[in-house]
């Protein structure tokens, strides 16, 4: 499908047209305080199209929260003699408008994790009803990100439509049929030679703006992890770890969960809910008998690093880390997954 161009002034009209069909979620500017003037952005449901802040950089939580909400009803049932359990599968049509390449890549990892073996329709129905509009990045969010290393800067999956900022508007590339349907709701024109050149200039600025940060090709990461299983490095880093789980909460590919039964106020029915869990929390690998198979912080920290660098890749064929840097930014003691990968490579 040939690329098209959307003028900056037509963006709000396009978003408004999409809103008639589906809920639009995107980055918005959060309020700043007198003491902290740095702009903070967050993924929210868009009310006014003009709220959409596509020039955002960092978000604490990515768009994952709309595909994998912190709490999700799985099964409802009645209390008493006849429970009649039923699946809760939601299909609310939505568009994630303005996902960065790392987040699109992370969504493709989640897609693979939930589709493989036994399919999880609770995630996949939401996903099937979700369109994703990518907005390309010209420079790294900050010094913690290493998306170029992790192969998530140029995503090949996880989006329907890609927007590249060019002078006076957006260069619009269509990836899927759904993307084309969305695109056709807006006022676009054919891309001309000068637009192609503007897009090319962006690509070159992007290429110059990102630099590799790992001292090895990421394809060797599983092997490097494998060889460092017994390294003291895990204990050394774990000294700083509080096992708070912020890394898991902010990670765009973390999907471990806990299950709880919630009873309605009238005591007539109940809902089985899944909610975020964290492999860094002490009871995560505990069994009913009291045995805890990852009792030590160091073993839990190592488990997470292995999941991100090796296990998820081996299970799904897609990386468990996209190099977005969220875990490092969220960590109260600045534990960096990137520096950890650098350190174990040097420690071998």
């Amino acid at each position, binding site marked *: 499908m040939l690329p098209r161009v959307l003028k900056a002034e037509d963006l709000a009209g396009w978003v408004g047209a999409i809103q008639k069909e589906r809920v639009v979620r995107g980055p918005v500017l959060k309020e700043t305080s007198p003491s902290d003037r740095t702009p903070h952005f967050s993924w929210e449901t868009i009310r006014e199209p003009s709220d959409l802040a596509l020039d955002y950089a960092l978000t604490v939580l990515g768009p994952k929260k709309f595909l994998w909400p912190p709490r999700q009803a*799985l*099964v409802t*049932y*009645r209390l008493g*003699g*006849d*429970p009649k*359990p*039923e*699946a809760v*599968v939601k*299909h609310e049509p939505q568009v994630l408008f303005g996902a960065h390449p790392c987040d699109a890549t992370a969504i*493709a990892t989640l*897609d*693979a994790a*939930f*589709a*493989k*073996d*036994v*399919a*999880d*329709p*609770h995630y*996949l*129905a939401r*996903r*099937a*009803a979700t369109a994703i509009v990518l907005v390309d990045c010209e420079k790294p969010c900050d010094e913690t990100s290493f998306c170029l290393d992790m192969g998530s800067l140029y995503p090949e*999956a996880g989006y329907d439509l890609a927007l590249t900022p060019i002078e006076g508007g957006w260069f619009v590339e269509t990836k*899927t049929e759904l993307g084309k349907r969305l695109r056709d709701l807006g006022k676009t024109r054919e891309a001309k030679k000068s637009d192609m050149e503007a897009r090319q200039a962006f690509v070159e600025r992007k290429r110059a703006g990102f630099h590799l940060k790992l001292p090895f090709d990421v394809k060797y990461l599983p092997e490097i992890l494998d060889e460092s*299983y017994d390294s003291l490095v895990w204990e050394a880093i774990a000294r700083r770890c509080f096992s708070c789980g912020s890394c898991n909460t902010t990670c765009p590919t973390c*999907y*471990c*969960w*806990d*299950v*709880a*039964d919630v*009873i309605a106020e009238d005591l007539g029915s*109940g809902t*089985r809910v*899944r909610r975020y*869990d964290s*492999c860094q929390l002490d009871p*995560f*690998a*505990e*069994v*009913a*008998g009291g*045995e805890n*198979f990852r009792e030590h912080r160091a*073993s839990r920290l190592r*488990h997470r690093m292995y*999941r991100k660098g*090796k*296990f998820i890749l*081996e*299970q799904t064929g897609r990386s468990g880390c996209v190099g977005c840097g969220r875990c490092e930014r969220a960590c109260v003691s600045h534990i960096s997954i990137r520096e950890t990968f650098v350190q174990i490579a040097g420690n071998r």
Partner: protein
Amino acid sequence: MTQADIDIAKGAAAPSPYVPRMARILSADQMTETERFFRIEMEDGQPLGYEPGQFVEVSVFGMGEAPISISSSPTQGKGFELCVRNAGTVTGALMKFGKGDRLGIRGPFGNHFPYEEMKGEDVLFVAGGLGLAPTRSLIRYCLDNRKDYRSVTILVGAREPKLLLFRDELDAWTKRQDAQTLVTVDRCGPDWKGCTGVITRLFKRVKLDAAKTWAVIVGPPIMFKFAVLEALAEGIRENRIICSLERHMKCGVGKCGHCQIRGVYVCRDGPIFTYEQVKRLREGI
């Protein structure tokens, strides 16, 4: 459409693996102070369709779910049996369940004991404490297909006599001519006439043909380590020492992460492993 898109579309329409099927309790017995034994049948009349060594997720609506090993063998007919220890919210609630009560069941999940490969060979069972619950599924299978196996030796251990599970069956197995059953307790009062001491001491009382023996060892991690050591000392091969790992499987389908040991999901790739596999897992026991 890419393969990923096809997988998403197909999976979105798939049945939820998290919805329990309804089952009814046919009988319930308080086996010990903390363990309750149930015979259960699916309400839709369909058999559960399980293999020895698999587990189910038991739902108490309003409380939650707990993973429980199946204690029976498919050779025992249409229903299935669970031996539940009171160890948490769900299992605590199950202590009050009796004949005619309804439960939710998901599964069966996981792999199973390699009973086909074991045919024509000797089988040594080493079951400590609640480890007898999953082991019994294979013991019953072997005894019900007795001619398919060479010698059958059953070693059972518990901390004290009143904690022994399946006591009637242990008596019946002890009386069998075609199997050797030895039971020991760590400590006992004067009315206990059987063996005392840890389960590994029973190894000295049995004769094994190591090259032809499969050892099925299930029990608490500390027992497992010492029993594996004994089995290896007898000369049994690492890939013929079989165990069932205990983890808190919450989803049963290899996704929620709770039962993961390194790259392995115990609920899907296990719970049955050989010692050869377990030693590589490192966090296994």
